[in-house]
C-alpha cells in the first residue's frame, strides 16, 4: 500500500519535472512608480435635465476621485487633455489601444443617470487597460447634492480593487480649529471630510477644547473642554449636537479615547499632582481605575482587539510608552530608545503603535511594533505630535507647529498626513490653523 503511494508520487514527479523543464527567471525588481491611471470624465445620460447638467458633477466626481487617488501616493493620474476617447464611448466599450497609447494601465469611466424618484444613479467601471479586462463595475444611488460622498465611495472601491486594502476616502477628520494670537488662541471643534472639504464647526470657541477623538461607530466624539473653567472630558454626538459630561470626577479629566468597540471611554484623571488612567462604560456609566501609580499615566489607547492598552507614563523618570492588559495588570515598558516618547496610538491592524518622540529638541512621528521592536521614525520637525490612524492602518494624520518669532508670529498648527512607509507627506489644507486631528472609521462600514 505504502509502496503504491510512493510509486504514484514518483510518477507524478516525473511528469511534473518533465513539463517544467522550462526556463525559470526570477523577477525581483520593478519600478515603484505610482500606477498610471486614466480617470475619464463621466457623462450624463440623456434623461438628465438642465439643472443637473449645470452642476457639472459629471466632471466634478472624477476630479474628486483623481484628487483622492493622487493624494494616496499610490496612483498617478494622467492628463485628461491626452484622452482620445469620449467619456460615453469609453464607458461602454473602451478602445484599450487608445488608453495604452497614453501609457494608462487602468482606466476609470462612469455614467450618471436620473431615477424616476429623482435620485441619481452613479455608475462607474474600472478597467485594466493592459490586460483589456474590466476589473469592477458598481453603481450608487444618491441625492444629487450628495455627489461628493459618492465620489469618495467610488475612490474607496478603486483603491481596494487595485491595492487589496480597504480604502479610507469615505471618512472624516475631527480636529481643533485654531484662530487668534498664540497667547490666547480661540479653539473650536471642527469636522471635515478626509480631503478637507465640508468643514463644520461644532463649538463656538468660548472655551478651550482639546483632543477630540472619533468613536469607531462614527456618531460620537469624545473630547476635552474647559467649559466653565472645569477641564473635563465630554461625549458629543456630532449629528444631534447633544453632549454629556463623562463621569463625575472631582478634578481634571483629559486624554480621552474610545475603546475599539466604542463602548468605553478611556482617559486620565488628575488629582493632587497625580494622573491615573480610568475607563467609563458609556452605557452603564461604571467607572474603573486601571493604573495606580504616583507618576503621570496618560494618553491611553486600546489595542483593536480590546485586550491591551498602550499608554504614556513617566514612572521611569521620563515620558515613555508602556503597555498593559485591559484590566490594568502586567504593565510593561516598550520604548527604550533615546529620547522621550508620548501619545501611543494603536494601529487598527493591531501590529503597530504610532507615537510622538522628542529627541535632541526635535519631534518625530514614528511607529514601533507593540512589543517595542522595529522602531521607525517617519518624519522629523520642530514640533509635531498626535498621530491618528486612517481606518486601513496605512496612513497617519498628525499636526505640526513651526517655531514662532519673538512676537509669537508664525508657528501656526497644520494638519499633515504621511504614509506608513514614511513617504508621501501631504499637507491637508484647512481654512484655519488646525491641531489634534482624529480620523473616523469608514462611514459606510457601520
Amino acid at each position, binding site marked *: 500500500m505504502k509502496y503504491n503511494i510512493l510509486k504514484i*508520487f514518483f510518477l*507524478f514527479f516525473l*511528469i*511534473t519535472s518533465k*513539463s*517544467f*523543464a*522550462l*526556463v*525559470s*527567471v*526570477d*523577477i*525581483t*525588481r*520593478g*519600478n*515603484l*512608480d*505610482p*500606477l*498610471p491611471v486614466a480617470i475619464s470624465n463621466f457623462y450624463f445620460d440623456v434623461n438628465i435635465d438642465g439643472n443637473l447638467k449645470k452642476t457639472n458633477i459629471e466632471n466634478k466626481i472624477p476630479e474628486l476621485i483623481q484628487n483622492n487617488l493622487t493624494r494616496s501616493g499610490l496612483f498617478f493620474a494622467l492628463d485628461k487633455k491626452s484622452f482620445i476617447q469620449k467619456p460615453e464611448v469609453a464607458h461602454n466599450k473602451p478602445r484599450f489601444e487608445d488608453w495604452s497609447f497614453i501609457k494608462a*494601465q487602468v482606466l476609470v469611466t462612469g455614467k450618471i443617470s436620473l431615477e424616476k424618484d429623482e435620485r441619481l444613479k452613479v455608475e462607474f*467601471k474600472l478597467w*485594466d487597460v*493592459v*490586460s483589456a*479586462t*474590466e*476589473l469592477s*463595475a*458598481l*453603481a*450608487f*444611488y444618491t441625492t444629487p*447634492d*450628495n455627489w461628493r*460622498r*459618492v465620489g469618495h*465611495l467610488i475612490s474607496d472601491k478603486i483603491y481596494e480593487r487595485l491595492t*487589496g*486594502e480597504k480604502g479610507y476616502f469615505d471618512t472624516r477628520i475631527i480636529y481643533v480649529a485654531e484662530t487668534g494670537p498664540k497667547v490666547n488662541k480661540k479653539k473650536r471643534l471642527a*469636522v471635515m471630510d478626509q480631503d478637507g472639504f*465640508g468643514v463644520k*464647526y*461644532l*463649538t*463656538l470657541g*468660548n*472655551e478651550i477644547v482639546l483632543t477630540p477623538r472619533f468613536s469607531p461607530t*462614527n456618531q460620537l466624539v469624545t473630547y476635552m473642554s474647559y467649559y466653565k473653567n472645569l477641564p473635563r472630558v*465630554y461625549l*458629543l454626538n*456630532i*449629528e*444631534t*449636537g447633544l*453632549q454629556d459630561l463623562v463621569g463625575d470626577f472631582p478634578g481634571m479629566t483629559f486624554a480621552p479615547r474610545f475603546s475599539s468597540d466604542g463602548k468605553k471611554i478611556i482617559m486620565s484623571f488628575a488629582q493632587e499632582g497625580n494622573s491615573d488612567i480610568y475607563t467609563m462604560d458609556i452605557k452603564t456609566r461604571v467607572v474603573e481605575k486601571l493604573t495606580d501609580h504616583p507618576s503621570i499615566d496618560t494618553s491611553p489607547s486600546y489595542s483593536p482587539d480590546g485586550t491591551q492598552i498602550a499608554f504614556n507614563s513617566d514612572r521611569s523618570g521620563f515620558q515613555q510608552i508602556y503597555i498593559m492588559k485591559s484590566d490594568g495588570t502586567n504593565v510593561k515598558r516598550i520604548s527604550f530608545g533615546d529620547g522621550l516618547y508620548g501619545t501611543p496610538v494603536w494601529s487598527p491592524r493591531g501590529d503597530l503603535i504610532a507615537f510622538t518622540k522628542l529627541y535632541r529638541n526635535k519631534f518625530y512621528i514614528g511607529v514601533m511594533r507593540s512589543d517595542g521592536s522595529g522602531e521607525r521614525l517617519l518624519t522629523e520637525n520642530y514640533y509635531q505630535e498626535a498621530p491618528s490612524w486612517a481606518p486601513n492602518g*496605512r496612513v497617519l494624520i498628525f499636526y505640526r507647529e513651526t517655531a514662532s518669532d519673538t512676537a509669537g508670529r508664525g508657528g501656526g498648527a497644520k494638519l499633515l498626513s504621511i504614509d506608513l512607509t514614511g513617504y508621501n507627506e501631504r499637507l491637508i489644507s484647512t481654512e484655519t490653523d488646525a491641531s489634534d486631528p482624529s480620523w473616523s472609521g469608514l462611514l*459606510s462600514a457601520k
Partner: protein
Amino acid sequence: MQKSLKISFIGHFVILIISSITLPFLMGKVQAPLVISVDLVQIGDRTNIPYAPKVLDGEKTDKKTKDRIVTNQAPPKIVPKEKPDAVPLPENIKQIKELLEKRQNPVKVENLDKQTSEFEKKEIFDPNKISALIDKSKKDNAETEKKTSLEVTQSQQKNVVVSKLTITQEDAIKAQIFKCWNIPIGLPYNENLTVKVRIKLNPDGSLISSEILDQSRMNAGGQTYYKILAESALRAVKLCNPLKVPSTEYEKWKEMQLNFDAKEMLKG
C-alpha cells in the same frame, strides 16, 4: 426727510435687536445645563445619506440592506418621505426594513443585473468566471495542478530545469521586465508573495500567451494581495510585448516561467 430718518431709525433698531439675539458674545456666558455651546450642525445629511449610496452588485445586496437600516436610524432631512422622525425602536426596524426593500431593493438590483450582465461575466469576482478559469487551467495545465498539489518548491524546480539561458540572456530578459513592471506599492512588504507566470513566445519574441501558474490562488479567499500582484505581473508581461529575445535556440526560450517577487523592492 423725516420719513427716511424714521425708516433708518427703525431699521437700525431691528438690526440691533437681531444681532443681540443672535450674537452669542452679547449675551454673556451661555449657561445651558450640561451642554456646551455647540452648533447643531446638520451633518446628518452627510453621514446619513438617505439612500446610503449603495453598492449594487448582487453579492453584496444582503449586507447593503443592513447598512441602509442602520443609516436610516438617524434620518436626514432631505427625504422626509417614509422616514421615521425619531430613531426607530427595535420593533419598528423590521417594518422599515420591509418598507425599504419594497420600495427600492429588488427591482433595482435586477435592473442593474440586466444592464451589466455582460460585465459581470467578465468580472473577476464573478464565481462563474472563477470556475471557468479553473476549468480552463485544469484543461490546459493538468500538470501544473498536480505540481502544486505536490508542493514542489521553487528551488526543486530549478533543479529539474533541463535547458538554461546563459546569464547574459537571462539578464537581458530580466532587464526588460523590470522596466515594464509597476509593483503595486500598496502591498505589504512582510508577506511572502511570489507569482509564477508562464509565457509562450513566438520566435520573434512576441507573446502568444501568458498565464498565472497558481490559478487557484487567484480567486481563493484571503489571497487578495496575491491576486493584485498577479494582475500586475500579467500587465508587465503584456507591456513588454514583444520581448527582445536571443536570435537562436528558440526551443530554449519559447516557453518561460517568470517568478515575480516584490518583497525586496517593497522592503527597500
